[in-house]
């Protein structure tokens, strides 16, 4: 990869970083030749952003070495990184919104205690950069009034203004329109021609194939492969990204669907920044079946769960459930959806599923706390809460079976059992369940899977969202694949294999089951 003449722009040796119990990066090695565009690809949570934050001095690595331009470099703060010629464009822009473009670019590189001289210099320098790299932007515009594509350009200018020779872009196209994204790649190419080294972090295969020279694949905090882009293809990268895992086995009979429970028609959701998170999602859910939603995380699955559970309101489309038609004009909130017997096990149990400071018996009634079962005339009926919690802990094998223990002090698997038990024991018609076994140990996984199948066999409808393909394939009767906010494929579980799903998840599948195919 390296011809030994020009030193490598970046070389990482055995970088490791741990956050509490989470090993975010493990023994990462990476070589990036000068003047190339290097892609780093991996699923969300694979540790890409952490690695980049280490290179940019936001975190310090626990162990390992960094060489920049052939010289061993200690990067403890962002200032060190800037000194070493590294610039970063963050996924969420680091701009002061009510400042002008000029002020944003100058911040931290003002060129003196007074602003006037620095402003004049910056104006000239920006003009030069703009013409050299086709990075036109009105320097006196207020940043918050610019479209996101231009805000990103300001971020790039900020880095170049500080003399960056290495530019890191973290998921740069996540907020861009396709046209803005195309323009970004033109800019990156011209940067490369000027000798700038670009590190492109993304989970989109299309961008990697279209713009990079080399690509490295990360999975679960580790660097699993390095390839020259011209010697690889989407299929291989998709497989490397998702990885081959130990096959999970769940004993279950074929589903016996007994009729329509929920139908979703053309669900759309536009977020506060005007980005379309859900695009015309339609599907049906029958009693007695498990429908799995596969997809690289961040492709609309969370938003779908939020819309169905009443946490977010639809922008358009309709949901028919329990005799009600839910639309943008007739929304139902999360508590009303619960009353209609729609139970929800959220993807992130710490943020949405539990109050970790609560004791188990308190957390076990969240969302159902107004139910007469837990209330006396004025006060909560603690006795009833406690005895029910003890009962459930025994039934679901929650350890330790202590209703007074704070939920934060249970292991991940036992926390998850508390949440799932809470929702399932309400005897819902539909169970929405997100990442049921994330951070759960293997024994508890089997347990949870069995319970999900049992619920199906009792004639309930289950919508399962998981980033674990094994789990999707093991549990589902039918699989929908989401990409970029839309359902791009649907297939019976019997036809699903890792390769097909992986390609569909990357929107790179052209076979008969795909709804849209890849137009790139």
């Amino acid at each position, binding site marked *: 990869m390296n011809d030994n003449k020009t030193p490598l722009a970046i070389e990482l040796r055995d970088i490791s970083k741990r*956050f509490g119990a989470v090993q*975010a990066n493990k023994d990462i090695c990476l070589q990036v030749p000068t003047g190339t565009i290097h892609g780093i690809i991996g699923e969300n949570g694979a540790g890409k*952003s*952490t690695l*980049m*934050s280490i290179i*940019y001095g*936001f*975190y310090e690595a626990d162990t390992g070495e960094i060489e920049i331009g052939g010289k061993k470099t200690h990067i403890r*703060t*962002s*200032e060190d*990184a*800037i000194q070493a010629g590294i610039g*970063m464009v*963050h996924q*969420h822009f*680091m*701009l*002061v*919104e*009510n*400042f002008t473009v000029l*002020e*944003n670019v*100058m*911040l*931290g*590189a*003002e060129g*003196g*205690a*007074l*602003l*006037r001289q*620095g402003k004049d210099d910056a104006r000239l320098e920006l003009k030069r950069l703009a013409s050299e790299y086709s990075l036109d932007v009105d320097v006196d515009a207020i940043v918050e009034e610019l479209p996101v594509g231009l805000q990103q350009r300001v971020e790039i200018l*900020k880095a170049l203004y500080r003399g960056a020779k290495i530019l890191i872009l973290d998921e740069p196209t996540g907020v861009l329109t396709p046209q803005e994204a195309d323009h970004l790649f033109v800019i990156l190419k011209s940067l490369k021609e000027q000798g700038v080294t670009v590190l492109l972090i993304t989970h989109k295969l299309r961008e990697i194939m279209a713009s990079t020279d080399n690509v490295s694949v990360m999975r679960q905090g580790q660097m699993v492969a390095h390839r020259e882009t011209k010697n690889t293809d989407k299929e291989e990268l998709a497989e490397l990204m998702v990885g081959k895992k130990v096959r999970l086995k769940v004993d279950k009979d074929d589903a016996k669907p007994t009729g329509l429970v929920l139908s979703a028609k053309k669900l759309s959701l536009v977020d506060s920044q005007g980005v379309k998170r859900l695009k015309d999602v339609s599907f049906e859910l029958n009693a007695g079946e498990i429908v799995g939603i596969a997809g690289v995380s961040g492709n609309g699955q969370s938003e779908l769960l939020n819309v169905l559970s009443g946490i977010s309101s639809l922008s358009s489309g309709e949901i028919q459930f329990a005799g009600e038609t839910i639309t943008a004009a007739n929304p139902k909130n999360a508590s009303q959806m619960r009353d209609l017997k729609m139970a929800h096990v959220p993807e992130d149990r710490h943020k949405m599923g539990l109050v970790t400071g609560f004791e188990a018996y308190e957390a076990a009634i969240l969302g159902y706390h107004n139910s007469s079962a837990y209330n006396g005339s004025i006060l909560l009926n603690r006795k009833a809460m406690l005895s029910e919690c003890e009962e459930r802990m025994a039934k679901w094998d929650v350890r330790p079976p202590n209703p007074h223990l704070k939920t934060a002090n249970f292991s991940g698997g036992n926390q998850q059992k508390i949440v799932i038990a809470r929702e399932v024991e309400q005897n819902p018609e539909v169970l929405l369940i997100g990442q049921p076994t994330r951070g759960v140990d293997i024994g508890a996984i089997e347990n949870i899977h069995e319970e999900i199948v049992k619920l199906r066999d009792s004639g309930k409808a289950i919508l399962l969202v998981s980033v674990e393909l094994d789990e999707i394939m093991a549990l589902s009767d039918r699989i929908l694949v989401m990409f970029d906010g839309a359902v791009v494929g649907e297939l019976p579980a019997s036809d699903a294999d890792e390769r097909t799903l992986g390609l569909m998840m990357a929107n790179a599948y052209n076979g008969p089951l795909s709804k849209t195919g890849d137009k790139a």
Partner: protein
Amino acid sequence: MFETLILILDATMRVSTPLILAALAGLFSERSGIVDIGLEGKILGGAFAAAAAAAVFGSAWIGLIFAMLASIGLALIHGFACITHRGDHIVSGVAINTIVAGLTVTLGLDWFGMGGQTPTLAGDARFLSLTLPFADAVADVPVIGLIYSELLSGHNVLVYLAFACVPLTYWVIYKTRFGLRLRAVGENPHAVDTAGISVAFLRYRAVIICGILCGLAGAYLSTAHNAGFLKDMSAGKGYIALAALIFGKWRPVPVLFACLLFGFLDAVAVRMQGVSLPGIGEIPVQAIEVLPYVLTVLLLAGFIGKAIGPKAVGRPYVKERA
């Protein structure tokens, strides 16, 4: 009538001085992202330190230095709680106000034994009025003479200093590197951090400036406006200054005018004592004294435009975990 107006405006300047200093103090703090409800406590602490030191050393200037040191000390406690330990800004500020209210009286009793007051200051232990050059000579010139000799001349040095602080603050905030970074850190500390600038160091510098200005305000109260420290002599000025800060939308010049408006109402209230207006009769002083507060409530209820403060104000800075 004209003379009355000049006299009211003259009083306005005196009453506004501590408000201006405190409001600018708050401006530095809040522009950096640190909410400062503790202006009141810092003024009171400064007032006590100034009076006590002036009484002991017989010099108003030494009193001023002690006022600033005491106030900076309180500001650093606030900074330590809010910046280093990411505590709640309001809780820390209120705690400082409460502690200072009790501590000044307790120390006053222990040191001077005069019921919590400090000895009455005289001579060099106070800031006395300065007469500007030719003030007496031009006093008889119509209109201008009165404006110069009554309104502009005859204040103590801290009054002039307070007014000079407004353009100075404007210059620092908008024309210097420090000002640019200060405004940035109150809006988006992440942007500042990724630009390679220490968020904590910036904010500490801001609260120290806040301490210095509050110290000036306190010293003005006890060693210039009055001749000694009285229990609770700050009398809510810190809160009024905070209101003026919001009223002026965290910008130096509008903040000055907000302070002058509140000061003017105060001066009118004093003037109106016992005056009977035709058709209305005697207006109770309290009715006018309450105006600044009514105005503030109206403002905070959103009647006078929307007051949008620095975006990151009151939020502790935590590096996000990717």
